């Protein structure tokens, strides 16, 4: 019988044969149509700088550990208009994806260095060092870890002088829908921090729309 990782307990390894689902829980705040806004800190040694960022979730397929959406950067210095990119996410669900990226020029050391920046990751570290977190039961853990990789520019050409070569390590809090992230690109400033909060488009509460593919 697997022991669930809960917010108050130390993470447990799944013992023996596990028949239950060890994937992170479904969360309405991380469903299609949900929007988030905040900033990405792009400061370098030379100057302090932060871009305002809006994110919208467009697709979610928990069975395949897949999430996607758009990211809009608002006050990008070299762009006349907000820059919108389409990104695809890998949900660390121990089934489709583990904490180890295994691509995009990210070594296990890079992975650990980024994941450990999230306080909610610390109970998971020891098991992740053993097997990338494959045997963790995340089904009751109120945080969802993901990697978001931008795939293309939606409204500007590739000659816009911006790069989407890197990807984000992301931690989502199921409690309040807040998102923290760190951009990783060996050729960009390290640890650019993304901080987003769930938005409600001028409403006094939460609204949820949905679509279903046939």
């Amino acid at each position, binding site marked *: 019988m697997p022991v669930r990782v809960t917010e108050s307990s130390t993470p447990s390894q799944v013992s023996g044969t596990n028949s239950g689902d060890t994937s992170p829980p479904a969360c*309405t705040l991380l469903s299609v149509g949900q929007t988030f806004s905040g900033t990405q800190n792009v400061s370098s040694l030379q100057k302090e700088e932060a871009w305002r960022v809006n994110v919208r979730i467009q697709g979610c397929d928990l069975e395949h550990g897949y999430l996607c959406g758009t990211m809009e950067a608002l006050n990008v210095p070299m762009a006349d208009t907000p820059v919108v990119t*389409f990104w695809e996410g890998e949900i660390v669900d121990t089934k489709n994806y583990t904490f180890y990226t295994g691509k995009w020029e990210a070594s296990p050391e890079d992975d650990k260095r980024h994941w450990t920046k999230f306080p909610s990751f610390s109970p998971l570290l020891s098991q992740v060092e053993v097997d990338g977190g494959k045997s963790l039961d995340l089904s009751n853990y109120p945080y969802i870890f993901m990697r978001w990789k931008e795939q293309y520019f939606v409204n500007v050409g590739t000659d816009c002088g911006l790069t989407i070569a890197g990807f984000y390590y992301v931690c989502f809090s199921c409690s309040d829908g807040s998102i923290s992230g760190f951009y990783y690109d060996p050729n960009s400033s390290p640890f650019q921090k993304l901080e987003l909060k769930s938005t409600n*488009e001028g409403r006094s509460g939460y609204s*949820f729309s949905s679509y*279903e593919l046939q």
Partner: protein
Amino acid sequence: MPSATVNKPRPSELLSRLTSAEPEVKVRALREVKNQIIGNRTKKLSFLKLGAVPAVAGILADSIDDVTDNNNCNNDSNNAINILVQSAAALGSFACGFDAGVQAVLDAGAFPNLLRLLANPNEKVVDAVARALRMIYQSKLAPKYDFLQQKNMEFLISLLNSEKENVSGLGASIITRSCETNLEQKALFDAGILRKLNSLLEGGSLSQRDASLESLATIFRNNPEVISKFAGPEIGRPLSSIIDLAKDRYPRTRLLACMCLIVIRNASPHFLQDIGIKTKLIHILLELLDDPGQVGDEAPFAFSSLIAQKEDLQKLALEANAIDKLHHHIKKGSLHPRRYEGILLALADMCSKLESCRSKFLSLQVLNLLADALTDYNAGVRAAACICLKSVTRSIKNLSAGYFMNETIVIPLVQLFLDPSTSVQVAALGATSNIVVDFTTRKSIFVQCGGMKQLVQLAKSMESSVRSNALWALKNFVFQADNRLKEGVFSELTASLLSSLIRDPEPSVQEQALALVRNLVDGCINLIEFVFAEDGLILGAIGRQLQCASTAEIGIQGMYALCNVASGNEFHKEAVMQLLFTQMGDKNQSFVIKFLQSNDSRLCTATVWTIVNLTCPSSPGAPGRLEKLRNAGIVSQIKNMVNDPCVDVKLRVRTVLGQSMAFGDN
């Protein structure tokens, strides 16, 4: 050098010769009828119209008692034998691959006479009769054979035990056509039929092997119990003989063996797990696509049943270049409709689950080919093209890029909304539902093509499947759409139509109508006013429907519609409160309590979110609403859920309790 042409007698002339008193003339006429109709549907039809089948059936009936002794070889007896053989053969030819012919043979009352003649002492007669009955049993119109009657089972066993190819083949055909229930499958197994069929597999002729493979597949279909007994030690190594036949030199045998193995695997997934066999089946079926005849027509359907719903097999098929090969056949053009339909359905199954398959398919620039198929004259092809499009358009990445929202696809698709075939209409609405989930600014293309107005019209259809699919497409269309598009949909639909759809007799229609309202009132806060139009017609309908929700899905969509309204201003929140407390059911209990106690965590989540919005601390009326919710027992019910096993429910419950504490509750 010119040669003399032999004029064939005309059908009407032949028919008059059938009535001749001269046995030789009659036999020649029967033989001529048979020869003229073999493989010629047009000829069959023209003879049918002239009443040839009752005439031939009458000859058979009149001669049935004339042959009683196999050894009597006098002239009269020979004539009688010839008449029986030729009339049975002609009836068989009328029935061969032609349902109208089968129906005519059955209507003429020939079937019981043919059955009776199986017991005739003359071998030639028995052979011709068995062949005719086999032709009848190849059709769905064949009379159902009741295996559960002891005497029928004994007769069937006697057929299968026959040395004669047509007779044992008839036995197998009867099983293929008549065995439908698990009980019948079990009865055939208990009677030892599988052992007999297996011996035909191993030692029978080509046609016996084929007939046996078809019967085995029928007995195995969805019956793991019979399969495990068959594959067990009792019968030897039967699976390996079927696997061997999948490599046979005859294409039809290969196809039937593959189909039998697929039936086994689909019913009992623990059999045939070996990756080598799976790959082999994929390769054999893809090769069979090259067969120019019926085998090639059926191969894509068998391929579909192998890979449908199975990601592992879809991956293997992708590696075997299945998409390229299927695409290659479509590109060649001028396909038989059955084959065209099968290939499109096979592509649909290939692209149903895996993005890698969809990417491969789209990389072949196939949208134009699909657009052609959407306008094909054959309804099966049109429906299959829609189903294929539906699978491919599950690619969120391409939907996000607006790849499918273009006139090449949308115009023919919208035209199919008025297709005479309901299955084409529903399939077209399915594909449309996906395409209209467009995240770019291209949704207006759909309106310009007349699609939105058509969907509203179809929401009034007499067919409930059409109504619910039209609403499904509208729901997806308004998802994240701008205000102008939403207002366009609402004014076309009207509050009265939408409220009557919420109260539709069909639960699936109710669910989609509620989900449509949910999406309409999301986004800009002003959009919430839709539910207050015409004196709150829609809001009232939602309340009444939630009180008697027959499925969890109806509750979920209805509660999210209310949740979204409750995320508005004070007036909106108070209207929702009023609804929660005016719609009381048994024991004067609000449906809210019932939903909070539901086993469906999605329904609990939607309900708790509504309470979160009603008690949002930033709104001035929240303390009063909280008081009412407390008095109605809703807050204490929520307190009971603080350790709900569903994380989402638990966290939302904590939000409500946190908000409640902000107003001094503890």
